[in-house]
C-alpha cells in the first residue's frame, strides 16, 4: 500500500540542467512510495560522483561512502540489519561500477537482498567527462576517444554471477515500473538506468539513444544470501589443564630445537615434548618455523622448558639440537654452540663429528623426530619417558606415537 510519508526532502534537484540523474532519483522515490516503504524502512547507500549527491534529497536513512565501494557497504548494511522489512538501496554511477566491479559480482554471487541502481551516463561527470568501463564504443567514437575496448555489460555480469534480477532500462517512462519490480525481488537486483549528461555527453535524449547499449532483462531463481548466526562455546572451554604428575631434574631452563622436513611430525613432536615438560611441573613454550608453502621444505620447532615462568620465547643458545633430515639440518646447523647437545640422523653429512644414529630408519619418516626426542629424554633423564607416553595416550594416533617413543630403545 502506498505510503503517505515523503521519501524525498525536496523537489529541487542539485544536478546540471537536463541531467538524467533527477529523473532517476524521482523514479526511485516513486517506486518506494508506491511499494509502501516508509522513509525509516529504507537505508540508502550512495557512492562518489554525481550520483553521490543524492543523500540530502532522501528522507530515508542514508550512508555516503567511497568511490565504487557502495555495493560492498550495502552488503554489510543488509547483512548487519538482517531485517526483511528494511530495504537497502545502493546508488552509483558507471565510474563507481567500473572501479568497484568486484563488489557488484560478490553481491550478486551471494544474492544479497538489496537493490543496486547504476546510473550510467557513459562518463565520469565530476572529473571532466572521461570515459568509464561502461562507456560504449559508439560513445567513445563520438567523443573522439580512440579506445575501442568493449565496455563491461554489468547487467549480464551480475546475472552470470547469480543476481536474482538484473536489467538495463533506457526509456525514462519505464524507470519507475522496472525499479518497483527490482525492489520487490527477493535477492540481489541490479538496475542500470541510462542517464543523459548534458555537460559532457549530449544535450538531447533523442541523440543519446544511438550511443547506449540495448535494454536487457535477466533473472536467476536462487535462494537469498544470508549470514548464519550460531551459538558457540568458549575457546578456553576445551583447553585441558596439565597437572604435574612427574618430576623434572631441570632447575633452570633448557631450549630444544627440532628440525626436519615438512610432514615429518616435527611440530607435533615439539608440542608433545612441551606437554611432557608441563606434566613434569615445568613451564613451556613452543613455536614453529616453516616456509609459507607449509607442505614442503624445512620444518623447525623450538621448545623452551623452564622451572620459572618464561617471558622471552626466543632461543638464543639452544641446549639441544635435533636434526632428522638435510632440510632441517641446513636450517639449524649455524645455531649450534659449543655447549649444544646435538643429535643428527646418520644419513645427514655434517662437517663435525656429532652423535649420529639411525633415527629415520628406526623411527620412520613421521616418527623420527619423536624417536630422537625420546632418546634424548632417556639419555638426559630430564623427566621420565612416561611423561611423554602420558601425553600421547589419548591421541587417536596413540599406537603409532607410542611405537615411535619406544623405538628409541632400538637405537
Amino acid at each position, binding site marked *: 500500500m502506498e505510503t503517505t510519508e515523503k521519501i524525498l526532502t525536496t523537489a529541487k534537484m542539485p544536478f546540471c540542467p537536463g541531467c538524467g540523474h533527477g529523473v532517476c532519483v524521482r523514479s526511485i522515490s516513486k517506486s518506494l512510495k508506491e511499494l509502501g516503504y516508509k*522513509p*525509516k*524502512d529504507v*537505508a540508502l547507500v550512495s557512492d562518489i560522483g554525481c550520483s553521490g549527491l543524492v*543523500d*540530502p534529497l532522501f*528522507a*530515508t*536513512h*542514508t*550512508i*555516503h*561512502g*567511497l568511490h565504487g*565501494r557502495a555495493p*560492498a*557497504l*550495502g*552488503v*554489510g*548494511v*543488509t*547483512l*548487519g*540489519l538482517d*531485517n526483511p522489512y*528494511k530495504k537497502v538501496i545502493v546508488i552509483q554511477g558507471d565510474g563507481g561500477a567500473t572501479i568497484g566491479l*568486484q*563488489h557488484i559480482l*560478490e553481491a550478486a554471487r551471494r544474492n544479497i537482498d538489496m537493490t543496486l541502481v547504476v546510473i550510467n551516463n557513459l562518463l565520469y561527470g565530476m572529473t571532466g567527462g572521461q570515459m568509464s568501463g561502461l562507456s560504449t564504443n559508439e560513445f567513445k567514437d563520438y567523443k573522439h576517444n580512440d579506445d575501442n575496448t568493449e565496455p563491461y555489460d554489468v547487467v549480464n555480469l551480475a546475472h552470470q554471477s547469480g543476481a536474482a534480477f538484473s536489467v538495463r532500462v533506457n526509456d525514462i517512462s519505464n524507470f519507475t515500473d522496472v525499479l518497483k519490480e527490482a525492489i520487490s525481488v527477493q535477492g540481489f537486483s541490479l538496475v542500470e538506468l541510462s542517464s543523459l549528461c548534458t555537460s559532457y555527453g549530449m544535450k538531447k535524449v533523442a541523440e543519446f539513444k544511438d550511443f547506449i547499449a540495448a535494454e536487457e532483462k535477466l533473472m536467476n531463481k536462487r535462494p537469498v544470501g544470508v*549470514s*548464519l*548466526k*550460531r*551459538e*558457540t*562455546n*568458549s*575457546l*578456553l572451554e576445551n*583447553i585441558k*589443564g*596439565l597437572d604435574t604428575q612427574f618430576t623434572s631434574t631441570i632447575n633452570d631452563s633448557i631450549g630444544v630445537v627440532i628440525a626436519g622436513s615438512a610432514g615429518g611430525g616435527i611440530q607435533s613432536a615439539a*608440542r608433545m615434548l*612441551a*606437554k611432557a615438560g*608441563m606434566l613434569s611441573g615445568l613451564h*613451556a*613454550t*613452543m*613455536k614453529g*618455523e616453516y*616456509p*609459507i608453502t607449509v607442505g614442503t621444505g624445512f620444518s623447525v620447532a623450538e621448545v623452551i622448558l623452564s622451572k620459572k615462568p*618464561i*617471558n*622471552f*620465547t*626466543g632461543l*638464543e643458545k639452544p641446549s639441544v639440537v635435533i636434526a632428522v633430515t638435510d632440510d632441517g639440518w641446513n636450517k639449524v646447523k649455524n645455531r649450534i654452540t659449543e655447549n649444544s647437545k646435538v643429535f643428527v640422523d646418520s644419513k645427514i653429512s655434517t662437517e663435525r663429528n656429532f652423535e649420529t644414529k639411525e633415527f629415520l630408519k628406526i623411527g620412520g619418516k613421521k616418527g623420527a623426530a619423536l624417536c630422537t626426542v625420546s632418546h634424548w629424554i632417556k639419555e638426559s633423564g630430564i623427566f621420565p619417558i612416561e611423561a611423554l607416553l602420558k601425553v600421547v595416550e589419548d591421541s587417536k594416533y596413540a599406537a603409532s606415537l607410542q611405537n615411535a617413543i619406544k623405538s628409541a630403545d632400538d637405537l
Partner: protein
Amino acid sequence: MIDASRIITEALVQSGADVFIGYPITPSNLFYSYSKERFPEFLAGPDEISVLQWMCGYSAAGKIPVTATAFPGLALMTETLNMAYMMELPMVLIITQRLGPSTGSATTGAQGDLKFIDGIISGGFPLPIFSPSNFDDAWTLSNEAVKTAIKFRTPVIILTSKELVMTQKSFNINSLETLEKVDTTPKAFEPPYQPYKAGEDMVPPFFPLGNNEYQVRFNSSTHDNDGLIRKGTPESLANTWRLREKLENRIDEYTFFELDAEEGATNLIVTWGVTADASRDAVYSIRNKGEKISLLIVKTLLPISKKIYDIIDSYDTVTFAEENMTGLYKEMIFGKRNNPKVKTATKFAAMLTPSEIEEIVK
C-alpha cells in the same frame, strides 16, 4: 598450551564483538580459524577492501565487527579505514606485524608498521592503537579495544606481531576473569537528534541505520551535524576537528602502560609488544648484576599521552627496544636525529634478545 590469537579472539567475543569478517593472511590466520569457530557470525570476504566495507555496513547497522590482517591487507583497507573513522563507526582491527617491505617474509615477525599506522588517517588524526605485551594484556586490552571503540565511536587497532600471537605457551587460563559484554545502549542526548551532534563528551550518540526512531545519516565526506556534505562551513569543519579532540582531550581514558620503576634508577628501557618480554628478562638480568634500571612497557602506542612523555623525561638515559631497523617508537618520541640521551636496541628480521638489549643499555 595456548596462544595469544585464541586469547584475543575469546576476549573480543566475550566483550560483545558480534561478527568477524576476514580475508586470510599470514600470520593472522589463527585469528581467522578461531573466529570461524567462536564468533556468533563469521563472513569470508573476497578481498580486504570488501572486508572493511562490509564491516562498516555492519557497524552502521549497530553491530561490532572485527577483522585480522597484516600490512598488505591493511594497506588495501586504508581508504575504508579513513571512511570508518570519518563516519565514526566502532570496530576492531587486529594487525599482526610481519617482515616487510611489501610481501616481505610472511612468516617472520616484526614491529615495522607503527609509523605507517601513525599516519594512516589522512590529516594526522589520532587513532587508538593498543599493543599487548603478553597473554594477560591480550585478554585485557582486547576488552579495552571494544570498550574504546564503542565509547569513542571509532575504529581501534590491536597491533601485535607474529611471535606474540602464534607462539604456544603454558598459561593458567583460570587467571583470566570472565569479561562482560560492553553496553551499546545509546546515551541520553538533548533533542532534536542530529547524527553528528555531540555533547560535552565530544562523541555523538549512536543510533543504527534502519532504526524506527531517528533518521540516521553517516557520511565519509566533510559533513555537518546532520551528516550531510558541507564544504568548509564552520559547523562541518568543527565536526571534523572534533574527531581529533574527542580522542586527544580524553586520551588518559584509554592510555595503558606498565611502569616497573626502580628507585634511584637513571636509566629507562622503553619497549612495546613482542619485545616487552625480552626487555623484562633484560631488566631482571641487569638488576641481578646490581645495576639500577627501570622499564616502561607502552600498551597504548598511539596517540601518545603526556604521561608517557613525562616518564621518559624523568630519566637521564633511555633505551628503546624494538624489533625494527631504527626504533620506530623512538622516532615517534624523539624524531630521527641522534640524541645523547637516547639509545636504540633494534633488530631486523629476528626477535631482539634479552642479552642484546642488555648490551645496548650498558
